[in-house]
């Protein structure tokens, strides 16, 4: 029997920056019942008209292999990299966190923000907006700590990731 343990994978996909390409990727995930835990997309190369999609998904090794094979079947897909298994990589996520409060709670939120190296990017008499960058876990921890201190809103980018070292996603086609 094959390995049935589900694991989280971060997959980077280089695609043509054209209308409908994101719908193709998302449609593939929903149509075939795969999970999407996080998804980011933005143009990364205007000369070649390419966008990069970072997807965090989870599944057994067989499912992850299927996801990659299915993605590679899409016509506008140039390159796929499983950052979780193809060597070491770094991941970051950014969150904007709005906290409302006065007095001790307000001071406490600032103190915690300092520990997490979060920046204050907006401030009013009774609120802050923090910008915090880091791993998904770090952001979760920060947001959890803000809950009792008057958490109002959270806006997150989702995970962006890149392989460590000199090699780019396009060097040496798979």
């Amino acid at each position: 029997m094959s390995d049935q343990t589900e694991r989280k994978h971060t997959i980077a996909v280089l695609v043509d920056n054209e209308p409908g390409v994101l719908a193709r990727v998302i449609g593939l995930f929903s149509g075939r019942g795969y999970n999407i835990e996080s998804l980011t997309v933005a143009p990364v190369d205007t000369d070649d008209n390419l966008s990069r999609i970072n997807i965090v998904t989870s599944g057994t090794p067989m499912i992850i292999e299927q996801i990659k094979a299915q993605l590679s079947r899409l016509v506008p897909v140039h390159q796929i990299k499983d950052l979780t298994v193809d060597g070491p990589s770094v991941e970051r996520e950014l969150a904007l966190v709005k906290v409302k409060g006065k007095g001790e709670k307000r001071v406490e939120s600032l103190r915690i923000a300092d520990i997490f190296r979060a920046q204050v990017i907006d401030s009013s008499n009774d609120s802050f907006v923090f910008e915090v960058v880091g791993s998904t876990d770090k952001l979760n921890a920060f947001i959890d700590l803000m809950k009792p201190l008057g958490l109002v809103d959270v806006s997150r980018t989702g995970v962006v990731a890149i392989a460590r070292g000199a090699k780019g996603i396009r060097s040496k086609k798979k």
Partner: protein
Amino acid sequence: MSTKQISGSEILLKSLVDQGVDTIFGYPGGAVLPIYDAMFQQNQIRHILVRQEAGAVHAAEGFARSTGKAGVVLVTSGPGATNAVTGLADAFMDSIPVVCLTGQVPTHLIGNDAFQEADTSGITRPCTKHNYLVKDVNDLARVVQEAFYVAQSGRPGPVVIDLPKDVLMAMSTYTTPEKKLKHRSYQPQVRGDHALIKQAVKLMASAKRPVFYCGGGVINSGPTASRRLTQLVRDTGFPITLTLMGLGAYPASDKQFLGMLGMHGTYEANLAMHGCDVMIAVGARFDDRITGKISEFAPNAKIIHIDIDPSSINKNVEVDIGIVGDCASVLGDMQKLWDATPNKPSKKSLNAWWEQIAIWQARECLRYKQEGDVIKPQYAIERLYEHTKKRKDVFITTEVGQHQMWAAQFFHFDKPNHWMTSGGLGTMGYGLPAAMGVQVAHPDALVVDIAGEASILMNIQEMSTIAQYRLPVKAFILNNEYMGMVRQWQELLHGGRYSESYMESLPDFVKLAESFGAVGLRATKADEVDDVIKEMIAIDKPVLADILVDKTENCFPMIPSGSAHNEMLLGPEDEAEKQISEEGMVLV
């Protein structure tokens, strides 16, 4: 570089001609009127006017499968496009190269809920290999060239080009494109990995109970793949079984052929799959109709899988050696390595395997009794085969259901591209328009749609197209006045409660044929079957042959859903003994 300004519609037609297109199946409407107008003023492309858009796509599928070229469809926006969706999904599942041109409302109206507007690219995205919405007339020629490349390379499939009306009317220039297109991102792997092929051949050489399991990918790869497969199978002396889609990839008359495998495959093919120690899967996708219960599929087998689509490998069944590549290319490499292999399996060990297979074959799993007047459907197909087997130009299409399985079991194919059936999607109503498409491509051939009375009614309107173009298509209807496969499942799985599976108020098929200017024939007794078949073949006109068969005959052998290959029902005697599990009932 031509500087002459011509319309988008003219550019489209020129692009099609440059792709080698000579036939289009279509139906006009508001959004595509400019194309029809341009078509009226040229004579390089022939248009076949269907009666419903689904018929156009199935006809294009029949055309594509019998010629190896892409089939081309032209439909209007909105309902024209949505009617085509079933055909596109069918072509997607069975990997048939089809290019479908759909009209669209003008670009400035897109998204406005305009008359006959549908989000065609959105609707067809999950059921096509790729689709395009052309918003600029200057992109049109490139898109058409790309669409044909995508439809026909790698694992083939349908491609939609959505064409807003203003783009069709806009002016631009046209230059014949370079012959070879190098696509920016889509470049399927054709050559297989040599090291893996070497491993595979080594494994084959060590096999004691090998079996080849091959499918539609061999046919899609082209006649070379079938030729190489046949050569390799003969040289190895291994048994071979084919999927429904693969029939014809290896000559059915050859003694190494075990028949079709799967849910209604032969006993020997399924048991050979179950008992094999080395399985060589070529262009087949381990579909649930093939594997049965996946946890008990080929429990002792080392599996080699050759497929051009990487996503087919390890999808349903984990394999030991997965080789991504075109069947013809990989089989060619395998043959060379096989020829150079010194230690091939001993005759003795293979003999033991063939003896075991002979014991399974002796069960005669396809046996049926033709007694008395009532026509057994199997008998009707056997007679049809007997009367046509000497001809070289016989093409068979089918609808979906019991008749389809009987056709697969009792009609034998020695060559690829002569059998067209809806395998993956299982589309009732496929056979008649598909036969029409085949006949357009092969005007002098004998094209027979082996049909059921329920299925054929789903696209019976195409009789009108068949009449218009004087296509001598024959529909051989096994009429049991039931949706036979539904009835069979209700008998076996739902306590004989025949809910809505009885066809009441059927038309008189003989009169129906006559109303379309075709010939209607009927056989009600077994001794009339031969005469009806002979007459049907002799008539140089379309024919509906209404063969009234045994109403309650079931299709055997059968692997009930949720069961393994070695748990087949061989016939009615088996039914009582082997109850179908609750777990199996949930499956389709």
